[in-house]
């Protein structure tokens, strides 16, 4: 159990050299070894999506992936969304539309939405709700999360 592997994780463009057991999950490694606690753990069995991060651009449940599997891949977390003082449009939209209450699920929803919208900004309403149904929120009733993501999707479509 205790055999460790020296790996390098690339998170939000920065390199993190860590030494981890093979069984160590990606989310524990991101949080505890790399100190990026914006990614949260909600269920540890891949249902709630609070731990969603992007791995090579795809939304991934980081509780279901081992850190050693993420070696050499591009990982993005909520801490990487902001550019200097400028928030990502989705972060702005979540605040504007009151799409969060306790905020615990928010990083997961943001990364899920970023990952999807970067590839398909032209989702239909139905597809959008289908995508957002893959994460859980216990506070908002989803209404404003849907509104916020839809607003950003619209503005992305409007842009040439």
């Amino acid at each position, binding site marked *: 159990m205790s055999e460790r592997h020296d790996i390098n994780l690339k998170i939000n463009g920065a390199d993190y050299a860590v030494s981890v057991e093979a069984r160590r999950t990606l989310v524990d490694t991101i949080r505890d070894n790399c100190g990026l*606690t914006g990614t949260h753990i909600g269920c540890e069995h891949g249902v709630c999506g609070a731990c969603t991060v992007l791995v090579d651009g795809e939304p991934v449940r980081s509780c279901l992936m081992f850190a050693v599997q993420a070696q050499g891949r591009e990982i993005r977390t909520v*801490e990487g*969304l902001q550019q200097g003082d400028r928030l990502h449009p989705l972060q702005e939209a979540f605040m504007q539309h009151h799409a969060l209450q306790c905020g615990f699920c928010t990083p997961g929803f943001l990364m899920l939405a970023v990952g999807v919208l970067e590839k398909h900004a032209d989702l239909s309403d139905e597809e959008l709700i289908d995508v957002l149904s893959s994460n859980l929120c216990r506070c908002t009733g989803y209404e*404003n999360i849907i509104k916020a993501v839809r607003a950003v999707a619209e503005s992305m479509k409007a842009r040439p």
Partner: protein
Amino acid sequence: MTGKPTAWIGASVARLEDRPLVTGRGRFADDISFPHQLHMRMVRSAYAHGRLSRIDTSEALAVRGVVAIWTAADIADLPPIDFREGPNETLAPFRQSVLASGHVRYAGEPVAAVFATDPYVAEDAADLVEVVIDELDAVIDAADEPSEFAKGLTTEPTICRQGFGDIADAFKHAAKIVELDLAIGRHSAVPLETRGAIGRYDAARDVLELHGAAKVPHRNRESLSRMLGRSTGGIHLYESHVGGGFGVRGEIYPEDILVLVAAMRLGRPVKWIEDRREHMIAANHSRQQRHRIRAAVDADGRLLGIDDQFYHDQGAYIRTHGTRIADMSCGILPGPYRLPNYRVNGHFRLTNKTPAATYRSPGRYETNFVRERLMDAIAREFGLSRIEIRRRNLIAPEEMPYARPLLALGDEVVLDSGHYEALLDKALARCNWDRLEREVQARRKAGELVGLGVAMYVEKSGLGPIDGVRVHVHPSGEVEVITGGASVGQGFETVVAQVCAEVLGIDYRKIRVVHGQTDRIEYGIGAHATRATVMTANATANAAAAVRAKALDMAAQLLQSSVGDLTIVNGVIGRHDGKGATITLGDTAHHLRPMSSTRGERVPSLSADGWFTTEHMTYPYGVQIAQVKIDQGTGRVDVEKMLIAFDVGRAINPMLVRGQLVGGYAQGLGGALFEEFQYDERGQPLSVTFADYLLPTAGDMPELDVLIAEDAPSPRNPLGIKGAGEGGVAAVGAVIASAVDDALGGGLITQLPITPQALKAIIDQRKAGK
């Protein structure tokens, strides 16, 4: 200077809380760590009921990194977990011990605690602790005859009895008697963040610290002080971000005691983070009740009396709330209806399941379902519409305040204000009820199973008796509001800042709201019972008014003006007419420093304490209307339309009120259709993951309309506020049941959750019968 003061109260301004939360810089329990901390892992009973015959820790102790393993014998000096309201002799024998000894009474009960240098190691070692339990029969159904809890004690610690009038006489004179047997399933808050607690003992200051606190830090400090035999001065609780509370998080559980005691005895900080499976079997469950209810009704469909026997499934032990939910159920059941005679016996029973306590709208989600099922049944019995039967029984506005000789949360129920029928009319008009009825009928004729539901309810909020707030203006111009209230993610900081901003005359973004820190303010009753906005906001208004008066007094001297000529706009003090010199609040605070030569005889510091006391709770009220469709192939219920009409007296921030109501609706929908903690006949929990305990998702949300009414401000507080926190969830079980039952033709829905299996069976039976 120019301009008028900004009206912050009533404005849907953006939240102060959001920026750290959307940028990944929040600090939830698991984000808190201290150097050299140990990690705790619980060993839990795998059996629902049994004799604990042996625990062997030797193999686990040999694991490298394990520092200690405790069983009950190691903490024999600790008392069981106390009731928040203090000692209660009758209920005391049924409290939960920190670690089980002698018997285990639910699957998930802590029997040992492992302390290790790494959380993975602690979990490995916990698996190696050998626990030998001789299994006993489990009590699963609270409606069964009571059995033995322990020697000389039964599984019915008490019966909660309330009532008034002459119930026998009411039934003697009834034109009709309507009787139902109704059940509400066991479900709970299930916040997205599991529980967490970090204990730290600072020997340098002789202070014991609990981090990851929530809900009621100040009240919990008092309980901990009693349990641990330390002065409250030597215990501090620190609330950070809270990933959803809803009643469950922030109560004192065995794990909270263990991290504190271990931090002292092992000499290192101790961190415990619950995993999801643990949460599903260890954190408070809620809601499970069965009611056998009868109504005596006169010839016109008016209630003469209600007689209710209910069985409250408390689970294995009585936790911090005592019998609160059963008491509340008794007190709140009559709802918005005139009721001359009433008798209720709440059998408060223990079973071999996870202990139960409050979950958002405790005692109301359950009894709203029960009472509104009853009203629908009476309507059917009399051949009246469900709207008409309610109209005939609603309490009229001229009867307010309406006192009932009942208790809820130990407070006499005095409905403070309300125009129930007017809200019903508004709701019916808003959703175009008549048209919906026509559409539903047409679709039914075409073979669809569609239905409309209606539910009316009275909520309660603003539990007193008192709350205090300190407002302090720094010479920088920044204002601190320090409160013993707590935030569970509902927007507490924003709302308190808005009230302070309005009274003080500054921008709400200049205000920093400090909450849940016992070392910043001595008193506080936290965030529960939808009390935060009512109590803390009114206390804030009082403190801000005192600060304002002091600022104007100082400024009048400095500006050579009189207090009556001055006002504060956007943090600047000047004359109402805009003429003459001005001074900022920050500069005024500077003049009030202790060392200031201009201060004169005034008490130093531009700050003040404000208190708000109240005699009774406030009672917001609502109407919910739902339209559902049942899939005849699968039994799945699709909520097509939903309206929540709710009177909050006065909305400080309508956007946040709506957020509370919509979020509450989703939780209520879970309890109505999806969520249930199921057990097998041996008391084994069957719902321990999100794959078998289903939370509503984005795809389950209907077209939802919210009507926020402010027609009946509370006369019990100067701001007229009634709380919104529990108004969304409270009647969802009731309204969904009403709608599904309507789709099926009536009289068939008697329990929650309404599962696809149950509906499919009804539909299939019907087809077979045709």
